[in-house]
């Protein structure tokens, strides 16, 4: 289940869906990312999130398929918001259900790492100093490259 949307979502409802999909079998790991008050700049007041409609869904489907190939998973749910987001609002949710806790943890972290470098979303930080397109972090590329076989993050 992959959703790209402007509106907020309910992590509790996603958790319930994951538990139902894991029925009788185990473990659910979730990650929720929130808008931070500091990023590349201090005093961030909000974010504008742009995406590439069509490619985003394809890229996330590829990430999910990759995760299912690497681990024994029952379900994977990704929600990513786009548009204008205020401080503290939810940006992204990744939830994974598996019979095994180590698979649930690994797959959830993998999906976040892969999403960060291979899904076409771009963040612009909005602040009193002015707007600023966030630059990709070496740390995010490094984290994505830890996984073997490596995540295809494209080549500049």
């Amino acid at each position: 289940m992959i959703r790209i949307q402007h509106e907020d979502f309910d992590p509790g409802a996603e958790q319930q869906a994951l538990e139902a999909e894991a029925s009788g079998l185990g473990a659910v790991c979730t990650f929720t990312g929130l808008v931070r008050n500091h990023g590349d700049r201090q005093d961030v007041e909000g974010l504008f999130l742009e995406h590439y409609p069509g490619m985003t869904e394809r890229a996330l489907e590829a990430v999910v398929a990759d995760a299912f190939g690497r681990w024994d998973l029952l379900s994977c749910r990704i929600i990513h918001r786009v548009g204008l987001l205020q401080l503290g609002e939810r940006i992204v949710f990744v939830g994974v259900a598996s019979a095994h806790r180590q698979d649930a943890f690994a797959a959830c972290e993998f999906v976040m790492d892969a999403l960060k470098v291979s899904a076409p979303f771009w963040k612009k930080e909005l602040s009193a100093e002015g707007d600023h397109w966030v630059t990709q972090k070496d740390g995010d590329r490094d984290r994505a490259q830890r996984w073997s076989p490596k995540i295809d993050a494209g080549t500049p």
Partner: protein
Amino acid sequence: MIRILFFAGLRERLHTAELELPADHIATAGDIITDLSQRGPAWAEAFSGGAPVMVAINQTMARPASKVVDGDEVAFFPPVTGG
């Protein structure tokens, strides 16, 4: 024709979200970059290699050497920063 898209900071710098190029004389994504670089200083600067630019062909990550054919959708954008 080849449909060309630009996103995020690159879209803003070029003041262009989308354009079309005839497919003649274009064999690779790199040929498109060469063509675009000749459109003026902002374009030359954007594709000079100073800031990294990613390319996707038909919504899949690609490289400058990747083949492009008539009817393809080719997108240029900065490294992604979602999540």
